[in-house]
């Protein structure tokens, strides 16, 4: 019996860590997994942890208290920018579709969807908690400049702060949206 329980525990943990997003601790946190880079193309990954964000909040608190307040509510920021060529385009595209499908199956709401003729493909998903507070935000973009972008911002974000986040982190798709409270 004990062995069965052990086996079940190990199996559960193994499955949990194998599914992207499931292993993440916070409801707003999404694990994009490993990104396949293409030789000679740009690859950027930024993974800001709570201790660094709170340090940044402390640094700007005197000069920009509003920004400090915003940062204090953010727990985690992850950004991936992957340059695309024929060697990784298919894999990255599949990964992006899988991330979007996974988010929607877990109750995330798509708030922005853009498909333009130039080939730009943008999605913004949010995870809302009690009192319409946003617990997480995911931006996925495949641009017409051979670049894929994945952004995940985790924390208690007031919808009014979205524009501020968009400006501070320079996330172009977020600048265009406005989320009404109660929606």
């Amino acid at each position: 019996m004990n062995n069965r329980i052990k086996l079940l525990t190990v199996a559960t943990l193994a499955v949990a860590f194998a599914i992207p997003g499931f292993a993440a601790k916070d409801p707003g946190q999404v694990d994009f997994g490993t990104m396949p880079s293409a030789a000679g193309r740009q690859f950027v990954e930024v993974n800001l942890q709570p201790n660094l964000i709170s340090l940044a909040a402390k640094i700007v608190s005197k000069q920009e208290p509003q920004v400090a307040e915003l940062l204090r509510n953010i727990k985690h920021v992850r950004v991936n920018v992957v340059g695309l060529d024929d060697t990784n385009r298919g894999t990255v595209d599949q990964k992006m579709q899988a991330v979007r499908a996974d988010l929607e199956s877990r109750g995330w709401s798509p708030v922005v969807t853009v498909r333009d003729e130039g080939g730009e493909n943008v999605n913004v998903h949010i995870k809302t908690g009690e009192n319409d507070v946003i617990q997480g935000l995911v931006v996925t973009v495949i641009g017409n400049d051979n670049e894929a972008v994945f952004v995940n911002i985790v924390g208690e974000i007031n919808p009014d702060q979205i524009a501020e986040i968009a400006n501070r982190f320079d996330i172009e798709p977020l600048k265009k949206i406005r989320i009404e409270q109660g929606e």
Partner: protein
Amino acid sequence: MSAPSRHRVWPWILAILGTICLLPVVIVATHIGLSSEARVLRDELKTATGSTWSTRVQLSSGPLLIPAARAVVSFCNVDEDARSALAAVRSASVGVYEIDEAGDSPGLGAGLASLDARLGRNGWERLITVIDNKENVVVYTKAGGNWDSKVRVCIGVVTGRELVVVSATVRPEALMPLIDKHLQQAKHRL
């Protein structure tokens, strides 16, 4: 009665003389080697590039260099910003290497998993990664702990012909006045 006490003194004298002789060796050894995390970063980056590298500079702050530098700077007419920055550094380890023969590896991206695994064993997390044609940068930080009092960073930069690794422990509160001053200046310029 006095002979035994004289015998007991000799081991102490020998120990003191031995320490005096060994001290310079220990000091030199601690200053020319890299910290363990910088060594791992250097080795993994060398492997990932597939190139052969020769050492140009390799030193660690050890227990004396940073306080000595602070003491020297306090008597010199050095820029206030440099003084503040030096005051924030508690220890540092720097290595600069030049390429001997370029390799044809798939690039740094392929070596990241191994780097993460080795540094991750000691609690280091990758914070920033930038890989492009001209410059490759990886920044690791020591996870957890109180960042208000101490931040540990380990940085690797690979350009076309140069590899630089830096590992440092910094006191953020000592940097606050410096950052504050520059934020204020930037705001005025805007």
